[in-house]
């Protein structure tokens, strides 16, 4: 934490600031005592809003990561969308990246969201499994690698 008087960085359990000598711990305890009742209700409303925002980000993330693949598989059945697989191969990797970024933003900005935390763990596990499968495929099928 930081001293409210001079901005010096201090340890959490310190009572006095080592730079300016201001009593830090009592100030902060008083602040909590005075504002606690007033802050409680506001905290609940903020928390509900945060969870809602986190859920929205996670749902958009799921659509980016999996929805695009499902939609393009469906569309590729029709003659008018024959080229969709080529387009997907060219830019398809951007959607899982966008999905991953959204879930990271949700879990960092809204750390109380369990949905964001769980989804992040799921993405990491799936990424590790995909990477291992990719390495195994590359090692057994060398022709896939054609230069850098």
């Amino acid at each position, binding site marked *: 934490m930081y001293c409210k008087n001079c901005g010096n960085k201090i340890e959490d359990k310190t009572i006095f600031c080592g730079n300016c000598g201001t009593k830090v711990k009592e100030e902060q305890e008083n602040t909590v005592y005075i504002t606690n009742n007033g802050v409680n209700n506001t905290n609940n409303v903020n928390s509900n809003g945060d969870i809602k925002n986190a859920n929205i980000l996670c749902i958009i993330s799921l659509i980016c990561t999996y929805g695009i693949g499902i939609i393009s598989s469906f569309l590729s059945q029709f003659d008018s969308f024959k080229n969709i697989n080529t387009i997907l191969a060219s830019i398809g990797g951007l959607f899982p990246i966008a999905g991953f970024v959204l879930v990271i933003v949700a879990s960092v900005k809204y750390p109380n969201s369990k949905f964001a935390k769980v989804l992040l763990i799921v993405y990491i596990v799936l990424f590790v499994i995909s990477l291992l499968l990719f390495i195994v495929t590359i090692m057994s099928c060398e022709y896939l690698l054609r230069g*850098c």
Partner: protein
Amino acid sequence: MIISKIDFPIYGILILISIIIGILYIYKMIKKDDLYNKNLLLFFLLYIVSSLILGIQFTLLVSKGETIGLSSYGGLIGAILSAFIFEKILSFDNKLIKYVIISLPLVYSIGKIGCFIAGCCYGIPYDGLLSVKYPDRLNVSLFPIQIFETITFFIIFIICNKNKNNKNIIYITILLSTIAKFLLDFLRYDHVTKIITLNQIISIIIIVCTIIIYLFRKRIRFSNKGGI
């Protein structure tokens, strides 16, 4: 020098090593500045994922989905994008983008060792000292451009790391790296059939954009000072 195919995915291993070394450099700089953040691990995860996936995606985009490979520019975009998201959107440490950009020449120079051993991104036909042959790919003596790229970009990294407290170091690093890449590209095998390559066109675009952004920001700073 003749380099035969090695039955071992040396290229992939060296790419991973280069990314890990880049991450270690960024971590060391952040710890040194006492800017440690508990979400640093998430940043490194996004850094790896976005560099690799955008590196592969860039090659797929250029080849219209026909060739898989790893593009340095795709990796660069991935790395900078992850730093941008964490620094600007998630209010991470305000030196993250700087350290990521300074680490890029180091990552590239180590990755080029992998290219040299694996036999890709080779140079123009050349029969003199230090020439190299890859019998499995092209049975012609070639210029060892990958080694020159490794040395050049390592020198660029050393220079930029020594001057990392210079307020314009981001622009200096980008300009030095892209100018070097543009010039060294003339010694690559692609130039046997082309006058200018896609990599060089991208280099020119980056150089021009960097200069424009630098002049624009300098003008804003100048007009702000004048207003006071």
